[in-house]
């Protein structure tokens, strides 16, 4: 394989072709060759091409120290690499040069550090380099550097089938302790179902007994387990601490610089029927946050041959839903799982088939991208950050909206992000992602979610408070919807994250919902007090309680929770009529829920367990409300605040017991004024048609 691949450019062709041609045909090709030579001469004068030629032709054993020519050519190559990136041929030549150690080990590391690809990395070069790796003369630190480089440019390798073919070869390196973490990471990216063999599992387990339960070994074993659960008998925790670490430090900034220089790439939204954008591979330069374009695993040349084994159809070739349905049983997922996020067809397929390995890989990539960008970002300019970050998060949000649920990696990311969030960075997106998290068990919800949110809530502005209220309202809605669907499915968990789902009983779910409603009640009461019962915040709070009051009727959850006094009284005594009206509506819905729950309890004889406390509270609220608004008997019942009569008389408010009824309530002032206007208009009407006014005390 190594000998027949022609890697080098025109200069080599010139030397070899001349000797291959026979004497008779030489004359006929003379004119052609002359023209070729002219062109090549021009090209060969390019210093970079000369440098490449030098590196491809240099003899083994040439000394490095004091060799000015090598130094000069290295500098040329490095300059080009850092400015525009190296072309695929240049990468092949330089990689071959470095890994074959033709000029000793000192240059190898230097070359590896400057191998910044401009577009693609040819996989043959990588495979050859892996071959060189096994020859055994490269120092360990350089070997590690090489593997790190492969991991960094993994997405840019044009096809992966040859790499997969040498899977066993790569696997053998796992026994070297220094290389083990990186090799495990590489294997994680390359593994398919066929690669999981019993002897490999055994070897990994043996390593584990030697090295301990390392996260990289556990991650690889969990992937093996997902593919072939019968082969891996180990119990693996569903979430593994830290997984694989990020290895791209020496190249990261240079890669970003090269990709930025190449021009931004427009990302399309989720298209309804077609798959992702088909771009010319030459122009495909992606920012590191952008979703990769979907490609097939097998390289383009092999696609033209009819694949006799399995007739697998790569996902990228499907363009409509009908095609998806036809080929459902033989679809092959792309190598880069992140590209699935852009295409609705792919997402529908993923949702339907529930391929655990695909989900694992997708979660892995997504978690990695989120961590890289938002949690461990470097000192880059923040504006650059938000330009890429916003479309990425928007795309993630629309994906979650499409699938009607969130990813587990985004949940883990959010918990960590909330602890370092300032409350305003990417606020709409973060709150949107937050509302999509699945039900959190009540034992952990306080530490994970409530604490950071409380700290943010009480120190932020009114708009943040409103935004958070809305987010928690959406979260509750989604939990209730999930529950109502889940309950109907009779123990069939249909969520996307089924392999890591929590086994939640009804009582566990009710606990979590209770915790959430209590928490929002506390936030609402205290927030209203701090903001002086601002009507915008009140409206968002009442939105939440409109959801809560109908939990039984609309979503079938046997739970009724009353709003706290800190929400009820500000709404009752609000100065705008809308709040009072909404409160009345909420009270009405509570009554409907209570009565239907009671009747159901009588019918089915099932212990519903509506808390007596809740019923008492409801009755109390209703009595207060009616006394206030209708009976003009305010202050005669204990409202949680007892005002003595002498104090009320001191206030010199005339008829204080009627001060908040329908006629005198400050919220309905506008209606009273309107009424008087109409009365005045009616006075203009002739006597025969005069209205007889109602009994309304006008004061």
């Amino acid at each position, binding site marked *: 394989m190594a000998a027949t691949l022609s890697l080098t450019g025109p200069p080599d062709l010139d030397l070899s072709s001349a000797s291959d041609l026979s004497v008779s045909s030489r004359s006929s090709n003379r004119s052609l060759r002359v023209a070729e030579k002219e062109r090549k001469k021009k090209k060969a004068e390019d210093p970079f091409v000369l440098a490449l030629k030098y590196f491809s032709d240099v003899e083994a054993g040439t000394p490095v120290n004091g060799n000015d020519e090598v130094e000069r050519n290295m500098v040329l190559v490095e300059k080009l690499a850092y400015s525009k990136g190296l072309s695929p041929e240049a990468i092949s030549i330089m990689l071959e040069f470095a890994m074959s150690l033709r000029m000793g080990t000192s240059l190898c590391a230097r070359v590896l550090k400057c191998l910044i690809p401009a577009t693609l990395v040819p996989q043959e070069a990588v495979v050859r380099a892996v071959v060189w790796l096994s020859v055994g003369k490269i120092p360990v630190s350089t070997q590690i550097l090489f593997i790190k480089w492969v991991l960094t440019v993994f997405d840019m390798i044009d096809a992966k089938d040859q790499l997969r073919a040498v899977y066993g070869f790569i696997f053998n390196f796992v026994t070297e302790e220094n290389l083990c973490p990186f090799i495990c990471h590489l294997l994680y990216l390359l593994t398919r179902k066929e690669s999981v063999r019993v002897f490999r599992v055994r070897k990994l387990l043996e390593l584990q007994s030697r090295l301990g339960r390392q996260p990289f070994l556990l991650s690889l074993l969990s992937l093996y387990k997902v593919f072939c659960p019968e082969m891996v008998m180990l119990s693996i925790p569903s979430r593994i601490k830290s997984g694989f670490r990020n290895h791209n430090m020496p190249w990261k900034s240079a890669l970003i610089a090269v990709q930025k220089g190449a021009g931004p790439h427009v990302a399309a939204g989720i298209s309804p029927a077609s798959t992702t954008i088909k771009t010319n591979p030459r122009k495909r330069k992606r920012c590191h946050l952008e979703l990769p374009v979907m490609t097939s695993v097998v390289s383009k040349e092999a696609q033209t041959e009819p694949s006799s084994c399995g007739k697998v159809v790569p996902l990228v070739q499907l363009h409509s839903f009908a095609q998806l349905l036809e080929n459902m049983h033989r679809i092959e997922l792309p190598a880069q799982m992140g590209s699935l996020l852009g295409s609705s067809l792919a997402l529908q397929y993923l949702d339907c088939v529930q391929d655990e390995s695909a989900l694992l890989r997708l979660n892995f990539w997504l978690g990695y991208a989120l961590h890289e960008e938002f949690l461990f*970002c470097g*000192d880059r300019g*923040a504006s650059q950050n938000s330009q890429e970050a916003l479309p990425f998060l928007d795309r993630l949000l629309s994906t979650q909206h499409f699938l009607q649920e969130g990813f587990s990696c985004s949940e883990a990311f959010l918990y960590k992000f909330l602890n370092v969030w300032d409350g305003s960075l990417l606020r709409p997106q973060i709150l949107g992602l937050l509302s999509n998290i699945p039900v959190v068990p009540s034992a952990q919800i306080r530490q*994970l979610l409530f*604490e950071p949110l*409380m700290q943010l809530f009480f120190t932020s502005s009114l708009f943040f408070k409103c935004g958070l209220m809305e987010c928690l309202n959406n979260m509750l809605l989604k939990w209730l919807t999930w529950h109502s669907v889940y309950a109907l499915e009779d123990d069939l968990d249909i969520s996307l994250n089924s392999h890591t789902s929590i086994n939640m009983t009804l009582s566990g779910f009710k606990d979590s919902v209770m915790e959430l409603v209590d928490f929002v009640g506390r936030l609402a009461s205290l927030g209203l007090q701090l903001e002086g019962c601002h009507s915008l915040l009140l409206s968002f709070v009442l939105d939440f309680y409109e959801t809560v009051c109908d939990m039984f009727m609309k979503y079938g959850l046997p739970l009724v929770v009353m709003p706290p006094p800190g929400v009820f009284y500000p709404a009752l005594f609000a100065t705008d009529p809308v709040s009072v009206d909404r409160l009345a509506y909420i009270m009405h819905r509570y009554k409907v829920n209570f009565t239907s729950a009671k009747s159901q309890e009588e019918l089915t004889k099932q212990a519903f367990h509506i808390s007596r406390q809740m019923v008492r509270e409801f009755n109390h609220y209703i009595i207060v409300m009616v006394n206030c608004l209708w009976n003009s008997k305010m202050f005669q019942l204990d409202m949680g605040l007892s005002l003595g009569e002498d104090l009320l008389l001191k206030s010199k408010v005339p008829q204080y017991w009627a001060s908040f009824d329908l006629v005198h309530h400050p919220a309905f002032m506008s209606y009273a004024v309107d009424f008087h206007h109409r009365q005045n208009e009616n006075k203009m009407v002739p006597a025969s048609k005069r209205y007889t006014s109602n009994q309304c005390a006008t004061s």
Partner: protein
Amino acid sequence: MTSRLPPRGNVTTSYAHSEKKRDGSTVPATSPSVRARVRGAERSSMAPLRPLSRLPGLNSANVLLVESEEQFQQRLADRLVEETTFTVNVRLAKSLPLPVENEESRPRIDLVVFIINLTSELSLQSAEASVKCLDHRYFLGKVSFMVTNARNVAAPGERLDAVRKLAASLHCALLFAEDQTPDGVTNATERLLTILKVAAGLVPMTTALYLSNLTRGTALRDIDQPSFD
């Protein structure tokens, strides 16, 4: 039901009413003349800052920003004095204790904010040392910590844990700020003003102690991987 603060009457420019003053950070001189100027018999030259030693100003609040690197505090101060509903006086310092010379002219400080840059160890150490020079009555809600660069990869996790522990043990609010963008600075200003209004007594029915109970966190943060097994 809503209470509104009276708007500032005849307002000129923000600098006319609000002021920025820099308190030097030199070690206070222990010369006898300085000591003689100081009121009170047993006042030492390293007198801790006291919250109730002066009367409050009308419709105004004073905040002290302490930052050993002196970078972020300048931008914050510029935004803080732009507040119009009440007068904000900002004082800047590199570290505590503040020099005794200015003690006469210094108004009552309502809120002390320690700004810590997580990428530098010195910043944290300086804040820890300065905290010791505050009177204990400040820790009833009149101190808060503001942390920048929390999402930076160069900031080790242990440092953030140490800051969290410090804030939790002192019952102080811990705020995170993005100091690289103007939006981040505006947001940090808003959050500081929310706490400052309460600390200066400008929010009815709310005291600084009350708010500090709501905003204080715990030091335990084992959220690296929530295990749902």
